[in-house]
């Protein structure tokens, strides 16, 4: 090539084309997606909790999406009773779909684990409740106070076990409480109209159908609980 003009044209045309396909068209296609009546916007406390979730990088181990039961086994694992649809995320800014499942999916954690104390203890010391967990402990979201210093507004966390601070009481900070409020708000169990053909739900259509058929067979013929070398 000898012409800079041709290079400029080609370079801009290719990225422009991709941006139209993957950014522009979805803008139009998803414009009409509205929140289901059961889905409430995050209140200020939940929103603050969402910021705590983002600030501490929860998204790097926890996804927030249920894939179609015909495609994979998220539903069978008990993480949700239907595939997630775009309408579930209308109030999410930014999205927290996630790309890793080092920990379990959280899109319905508020249904699965509805107890706020459980979450507070778990955040303070995950291994006091789940022995095999590799989640970081977040003691910096809590204060360790002398029992007599605990005020009337303080939320005391019933921590037990060897890691409980001797002679001290664990009190949740505003951040910890907000984070738990956010986690409890993660409930996407209301019915969405015709999940199977919901506009924009991945895993619909002939290609996914074929994959789904294979997926349905997989658990029976799959590796089961067998330990691989």
């Amino acid at each position, binding site marked *: *090539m000898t012409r*800079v003009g041709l*290079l400029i044209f080609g*370079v*801009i045309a290719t*990225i422009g*084309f*991709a*941006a139209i396909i*993957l*950014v522009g068209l979805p803008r139009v*296609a998803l414009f009409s*997606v509205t929140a289901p009546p059961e889905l409430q916007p995050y209140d200020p406390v939940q929103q603050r909790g969402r910021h705590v979730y983002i*600030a*501490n*990088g929860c*998204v*790097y*181990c926890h996804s927030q999406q249920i*894939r179609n039961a015909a495609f*994979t*086994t998220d539903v069978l*694992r008990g993480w949700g009773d239907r595939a997630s649809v*775009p309408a579930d*995320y*209308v109030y*999410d*800014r*930014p*999205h*927290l*779909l996630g*790309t*890793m*499942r*080092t920990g379990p999916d959280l899109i319905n954690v508020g249904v699965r684990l509805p107890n706020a104390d459980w979450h507070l203890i778990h955040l303070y010391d*995950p291994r006091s409740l789940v022995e*095999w967990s*590799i989640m*970081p*402990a977040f003691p*910096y979201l809590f204060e360790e106070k002398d029992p007599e210093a605990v005020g009337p507004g303080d939320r005391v966390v019933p921590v037990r076990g060897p890691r409980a601070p001797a002679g001290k009481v664990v009190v949740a900070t505003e951040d910890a409480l907000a984070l738990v409020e956010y986690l409890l708000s993660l409930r996407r169990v209301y019915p969405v109209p015709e999940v199977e053909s919901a*506009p*924009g739900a*991945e*895993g*619909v*259509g002939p*290609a*996914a159908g074929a*994959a789904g058929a*294979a*997926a349905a067979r*997989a*658990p029976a013929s*799959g*590796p*089961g*609980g067998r330990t*691989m070398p």
Partner: protein
Amino acid sequence: MSRPGEAREPPGALSVPGAGLPLEEEVDIRLRADASSRRPVLVCFTTALFWLLLGSIAGDVSSLKLHLPDLLVRQGWLTFGRQRTVHLNAMIYGWASLAMLGVSLWIVPRLVHNTLRWPRLATAGVVVWNVGVAIGIALILAGINDGIEWLEMHRYLADPLLVVGGGMVGVTLLVTLLSRKVDHLYVSVWYMFGAFVWFPVIYVIGNWPTFHGVESGAVNWFYAHNALGLWLTAVGLGAIYYFIPKVLGRPIYSYQLSLLGFWGLAFFYSLNGMHHLVGGPIPTWMITTSIVASVLMIIPVLAVAVNHHMTMIGRFSALRYSPTLRFVVLGAIAYTAVSLQGMFTALREVNRITHFTQWTIAHSHVGVYAFVTFVLFGSMYYIMPRMVRREWPSERLIRWHFWLVLSGIAIYVIALTVVGVWQGLALIDPQVPFQRTVEIQRPGLVARSVAGLLLTAGHVVFVWHYWRMVRGPAAARELPPFYGVRPIVYTEPGGKP
């Protein structure tokens, strides 16, 4: 007949523009080009190495925490979620991007037989970029980030500095290109030109604040995949296209394949991003588009692979005396490997298993480390002696660097790929409790920490060597390292090339 040691230009390097000029004139053009880009290139490399060390430490801390979860938990800035994010941002925007700016600033003036125009603007741009990365990383440690993977640095306080700084460097390269002294644009220039146009476009789209819901997810992966494909890969391939012919003194195998590889990458790679959301709640047609484009990547990838391999073929013995070639050729092989792996991973049936597992982490390190970082190391081995007019002081340190990082990345990739598949098979089997999918990862996570420490040790060796070269007592060494290694290629005058 001169022997092609690292520091000499083999007279047969006819693959680059200017072929046919008298040797003295050609050398003179290069010397002037090198002198003009010296300051900005050195600022790029030195700061890039700072970020490399910082990113290595953050990576090691993150890795250790995954199997020692109660390590360093008392402070928020040391938590896994922030250290991992610092690792990614320091490596991508600090180390790789700054080293790429340096390599581009050095290669482009040479290839267009020009001096770097407005070098002070370039240096200022590099400084602005660094300030942006520093602010972004400090805020991440403080718990202030945008929450979007690969775009965590602050949208208003950090990111604009990268666009402005990168733009300043881009302008100097564009002016250098427009006032060029040769007609033909060599393939490396295409890639680097493309990268400097693509990066600001995708970066601004990715950071645009109005997206929400699943659209924000789509834009996230549109950006993040293109940051790999149209920024890191583009400059990385540009450098490979420069250094393989340069060190071997042999032209690139096929001009047509270069064209196919470049335009194929521009067209197909830019559509790949949605394969990160296979199965997710975004319209099926978007994911299918990306899967198709991912598979079509086989065209440019094979074109580039054949082109590089056919240029190398018969000359692999040159790897013995050229550290540049050793790193760059391994990087080129890793590019082919990671691209084929990426295509395969994009397929729905494979993705069902590998999605959400450590497989992805291994894959990304084949790309950013075994491909891009190796190419950048190789480039620095070639460029630095021409910047400071000294040879690398120690063969031993080069060997240590090479073998530490090679063994480190090999252990890293093998360990996480294996446990990734295992974890994935467990995850899609509802009979297996989730606990098991966590326990399965453990040996891989421990092995990855060992690998991470090897990589960090390699980086420390390299930085120490770099420091000795730049700041140490004037080098006693007159000949390049490995000069004594018998070159097989050029010993026979008139012999077959």
